[in-house]
């Protein structure tokens, strides 16, 4: 549902369904007949004043309705102005008519000012309060839809970050291989294409599977292993029963890219990267480890990758998921992702 602008709100508020219209009409007629029969002419006249005023306010709203844009959330001022004018005109008119019939002794013991105020008060209760309520709701909905748009925009930006440095270096490697080892060049291009599929994924399919994400991590690491030569080794193990488990796209990729960027790239010499997954007690645990540069003694970090990851986790799972970086038993750096897990393919 899109949010309701003033136009839709007015329609919903004052345009009755057939059933509502019939019921109201029957009640109105019953009241009039009853009042007439009990000879409560004064009360009847006062009642008519109230109905007339509210009716005029309604007419004001209906009159302004065609002047409001259909979908937008603008036009609230015009709506309120129309209601105010309609109600005031109705109240003045009805009070004037009341004075006219009052002259014939058909009045209760109220001054004209009291009648006028009662008419206005009734219109406020019957129309202004519901309209104000609807306006607040509509604006809250509007805000929520804006927030949603902002979130999905953020997600899109998350999903389309291919570092130029990565791309150019990879292409430089591929060009060298194309000249000297064409078969390897083709392999490298295949890995690159698979990687680019993750970096520019299909937004219509926000969910991925563990199997697919591990495969993509494998492509990325294979590519980096060609680039870094012997010094990078890796192992990617997706337990076969978990292949179909659903997993949001690119979370694993963020962790693997981090391991390469902060673990492998800064450290001279051989580095090993491991990616694994396991299940225990309704929790899916994914671990990316590397024995590279490590966490060192630095206090501050600037990466936004992990912050984005945390925000996405909070968005998707609330308190049920968490992420931590820690130093493993063998001194390696471990990124640990814990997600809620339900049995069977989801």
């Amino acid at each position, binding site marked *: 549902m899109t949010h309701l602008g003033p136009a839709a709100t007015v329609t919903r508020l004052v345009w009755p369904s057939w059933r509502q219209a019939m019921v109201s009409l029957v009640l109105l007629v019953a009241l009039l007949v009853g009042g007439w029969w009990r000879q409560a002419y004064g009360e009847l006249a006062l009642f008519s004043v109230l109905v007339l005023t509210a009716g005029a306010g309604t007419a004001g709203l209906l009159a302004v309705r065609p002047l409001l844009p259909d979908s937008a959330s603008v036009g609230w001022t015009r709506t309120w102005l129309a209601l105010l004018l309609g109600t005031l005109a109705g109240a003045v008119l009805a009070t004037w008519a009341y004075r006219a019939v009052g002259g014939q002794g058909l009045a209760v013991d109220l001054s004209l000012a009291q009648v006028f105020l009662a008419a206005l008060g009734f219109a406020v209760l019957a129309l202004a309060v519901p309209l104000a309520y609807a306006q607040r709701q509509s604006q809250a909905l509007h805000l929520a839809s804006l927030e949603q748009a902002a979130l999905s925009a953020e997600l899109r930006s998350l999903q389309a970050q291919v*570092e130029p*440095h990565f791309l*150019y270096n990879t292409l*430089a490697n591929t060009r060298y291989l194309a000249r000297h080892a064409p078969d390897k060049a083709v392999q490298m291009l295949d890995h690159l294409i698979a990687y680019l599929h993750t970096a520019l994924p299909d937004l219509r399919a926000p969910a991925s599977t563990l199997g697919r994400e591990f495969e993509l991590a494998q492509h990325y690491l294979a590519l980096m292993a060609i*680039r870094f*030569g012997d010094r990078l080794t890796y192992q990617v193990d997706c337990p076969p029963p978990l292949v179909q488990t659903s997993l949001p796209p690119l979370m694993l990729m963020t962790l693997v890219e981090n391991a390469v960027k902060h673990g492998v790239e800064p450290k*001279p010499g051989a580095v090993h990267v491991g990616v694994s997954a396991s299940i225990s007690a309704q929790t899916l645990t994914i671990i990316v480890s590397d024995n590279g540069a490590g966490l060192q003694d630095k*206090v*501050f970090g600037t990466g936004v990758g992990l912050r984005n990851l945390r925000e996405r986790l909070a968005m998707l799972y609330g308190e049920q998921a968490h992420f931590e970086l820690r130093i493993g038993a063998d001194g390696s750096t471990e990124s640990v992702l814990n997600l809620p897990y339900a049995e069977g393919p989801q």
Partner: protein
Amino acid sequence: MMQPRVLIADDEPLLLAELRGALASLWPEAVLVAEAADGFEALRLARECEPDVAFLDIRMPGMNGIELARTFGRRTHVVFVTAHDEHAVAAFEEGAVDYVLKPFDVTRLARCIARVRERLLQPPPDLTRLLAGLQSKPATPSWIQASVGQTIHFIDLADVIYFAAEAKYTRVVTPSLEAHIRTPLKELADTLDAAGFWQVHRSYVVAVKSIANATRDGDGALWLKLRDHSARLPVSQRFQHRFRAA
């Protein structure tokens, strides 16, 4: 100078091989005296071989190309070979050092070699000042690494309410945990200042967004009340100017 001595450094073996091949065909009289796969190795080899020209990758393990170039002083001409580094490229346009973008274009590399050959007749320019400008400013930090007992936590700076000085340590306080950093608060203060934190006392640096209000007690001392935390922090005289009503 008939036979210039050349060092090349890149952590990606294939790119090193490509550069080696390109230099051999475009600059046959040059002698390749050293090849390095990381910054430390390049530093050691450069000291050993004293090359006339060095082609350096910028991002390398151990020591990066810019740090490395600084150690060369006025002994070696430097050409940076980089995949993408917008600050560097902008600065090199000044003409003091040359650079080649990867994947490199052969004509661009040939032009670069021609320029280097001309320059070999003069001593290399002193790059210190230019390189100091290149070393990009540290970006605003977004997280900190702190320990709770034996576990290291990565804490998003956005979650931190305040830092408190404690002897040799700094205590980090968030709504859900307290952790310690083995760095004194005064060494962190400048960096934190850029990240939305205010020093309010010798012992306290607080997240501006976590300050609920500042009130004066009967003795005229100023205290901060915080959002999401029950602690009250004192504001010392030195920092009270931040809380003057506008």
